[in-house]
């Protein structure tokens, strides 16, 4: 298993270094327009936060997998974990916000020792759509996780899981040896308790990230192909597929540079820029909370350590008036969310 960039003490573990790369070279020389210049062409700068709809909480960077493309640089060697105190501060906000969606992410959120306590508590708040981003293999990783499908069902959790392809080769290449088989087993277990079955209210959606330096194809066509292959090969069912573009940060940026694909990839993102995707980018209705309670416009800005442009910088200081209408913090990585049909944690946006 590879180590995280942090463990390797890689240059790219430093978010400032990542931002330098994204601001220099082809962008500094004017070969490609910066994101700010591009959205200014259609008078969309600065992007403004609208009413909060999705509260995305990153409960820790620890993960049982070390995926090649991970924008969190997550892995077993990451020890950043949300404490129960910070969770209590999040719960306070969950209870009084009008957000309809609570989205728990990581790392592997299930590895947080207070995960089940937090889910129990948050469930009581009666959030309409309660998402847990599960990497699937965690359900197989250890006996203590084996009952998670039942636990999810009990809390009517909306499970969103990564699956880069319906073939073993592509999946294992991106996510590690053995991930495909473990994921298939986990999906069957989720299906067995009712998740993802046609007409079932237990939502099971899959996330597709390209396994290389290319953009995702059409979400609708990909979903059709995924459904056909998983049904025919494994009798697996799921509801929707979210096609998500890999953003050029963290481990994916490291991969792009090492494979000499960085410039071509940035060209692809800029050339595929879709101004109509800009108005629906997720940062305008989402707030991302880090493991230590700080607020960001999105999970990507969290990893780049670009905090919200507001006086309320921590969940303990949450204030709807201060946060609504704030200017979104952007850089060139934002092209990832506006390419083609657009991209968000809920898939295409245009």
């Amino acid at each position: 298993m590879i180590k995280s960039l942090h463990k390797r003490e890689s240059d790219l573990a430093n978010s400032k270094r990542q931002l330098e790369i994204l601001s220099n070279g082809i962008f500094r020389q004017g070969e490609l327009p910066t994101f700010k210049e591009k959205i200014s062409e259609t008078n969309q700068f600065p992007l403004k936060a609208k009413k909060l709809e999705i509260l995305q909480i990153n409960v820790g960077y620890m993960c049982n997998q070390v995926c090649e493309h991970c924008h969190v640089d997550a892995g077993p060697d990451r020890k950043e974990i949300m404490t129960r105190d910070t969770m209590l501060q999040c719960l306070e906000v969950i209870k009084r916000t009008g957000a309809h969606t609570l989205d728990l992410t990581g790392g592997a959120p299930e590895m947080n020792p207070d995960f089940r306590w937090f889910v129990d508590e948050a469930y009581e708040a009666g959030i309409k759509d309660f998402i847990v981003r599960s990497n699937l293999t965690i359900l197989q990783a250890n006996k203590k996780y084996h009952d998670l499908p039942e636990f999810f069902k009990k809390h009517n959790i909306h499970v969103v899981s990564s699956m880069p392809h319906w073939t073993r080769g592509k999946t294992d290449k991106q996510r590690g040896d053995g991930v495909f088989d473990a994921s298939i087993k986990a999906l069957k277990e989720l299906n067995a308790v009712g998740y993802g079955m046609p007409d079932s209210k237990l939502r099971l959606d899959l996330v597709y990230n390209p396994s290389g330096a290319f953009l995702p194809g059409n979400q609708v066509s990909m979903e059709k192909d995924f459904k056909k292959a998983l049904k025919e090969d494994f009798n697996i069912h799921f509801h929707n597929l979210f096609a998500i573009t890999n953003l050029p940060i963290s481990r994916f940026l490291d991969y792009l540079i090492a494979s000499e694909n960085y410039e071509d990839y940035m060209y692809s993102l800029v050339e595929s820029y879709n101004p109509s995707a800009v108005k629906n980018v997720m940062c305008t209705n989402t707030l991302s909370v880090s493991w230590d309670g700080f607020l960001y416009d999105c999970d990507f800005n969290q990893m780049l350590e670009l905090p919200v442009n507001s006086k309320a910088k921590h969940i303990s200081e949450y204030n709807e008036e201060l946060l609504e209408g704030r200017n979104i913090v952007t850089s060139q990585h934002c092209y990832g969310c506006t390419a083609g049909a657009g991209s968000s944690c809920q898939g295409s946006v245009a």
Partner: protein
Amino acid sequence: MQKTYYDPADLRKFGKISDWNKELGDKFFDYYGKVFEEGALSAREKSLIALAVAHTIQCPYCIDAYTGDGLQRGITKEEMMEALHVAAAIRGGASLVHGVQMMNKVNKLEM
């Protein structure tokens, strides 16, 4: 002046063909776009046909473009290679089938 006939960066400039003849360029790209839309054949099947043809006509730009397009569509490398073998079989077969002409000629000329 570039030192090679092909520059991968030129592929990005394909659309500039219209700069010197907008009407015909636009008509071509409209047609091109239409051809690759979902139809009786899926866009995925068309992408594989394009990849095979790209190798038959040995167009490096097209090979780059439709390898990338195939990956975007989730086409596997096994599918891509099978498509290439179809192209190779037809191309090889096209040479070999002319052997019948050779055989006819030999049979006619020889005693």
